[in-house]
């Protein structure tokens, strides 16, 4: 059987094990990560029962297109003044 140890996508050079522990999943099959450095992870569940957690970060605000940001800013400033359109009637557009 091939080794299940996976190298990082960009190579495992310089990566060391900083902590190793056993955990038991709780009744809802949850486990806790100790001293997790990031809030978000991309998780791959492998067919052999392994899980790979890749740390992720939220895309910074700058990735919102400028026009969308401008539209958002104007809408928010209106909303703060109590300005918004009259309630929208969706009934003609929704299938029942």
């Amino acid at each position, binding site marked *: 059987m091939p080794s299940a140890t996976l190298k990082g996508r960009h190579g495992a050079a310089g990566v060391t094990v900083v902590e190793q522990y056993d955990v038991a999943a709780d009744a809802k099959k949850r486990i806790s990560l100790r001293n997790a450095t*990031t809030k*978000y992870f*991309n998780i791959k569940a492998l067919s052999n029962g392994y899980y790979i957690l*890749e*740390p*992720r*970060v*939220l*895309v*910074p*605000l700058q*990735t*919102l*297109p400028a*026009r*969308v*940001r401008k*539209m*958002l*800013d*104007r*809408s*928010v400033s*209106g*909303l*703060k003044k*109590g*300005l*918004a*359109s*009259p*309630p*929208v009637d*969706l009934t*003609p*557009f*929704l299938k029942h």
Partner: protein
Amino acid sequence: MSFRLRMGVPEMEAYWNDLAGRKLQGRLDKHEEKFFKKLAKALGFLAQNPRHPGLASHEIDDLTRQHGIKIFQSYLENNTPAAGRLFWAYGPEQGDITVLAIEPHPEDQKRGAYQRIKLSALPPRKPKSQEPKGGK
């Protein structure tokens, strides 16, 4: 609980009025028709239950911090971020939801060209500064 949906002023309201008006007149093109269908469905979910699983609604902390009110993002299509997203907030009155912005922007012809990923790889770590050891 269902919410009253309102559009942010002035752009979002103008956009919705234009799109809805042309929909009723049957003057939307193929792409607009497809987009409007998703938009109307998402708005329907939003009005019924902003936490509807199909919307994958979540607060955007950066925008909340920047504007001082809680701003949420919802997807127009389940599991397809490229389908577009809505930005909304509660208010101005209780029981109201105001749609603040929409992506893709109506004026942008490059629909689907944006890099619409929710999460990205971690930025490279800064090398640890060389601190003198054992200097208590």
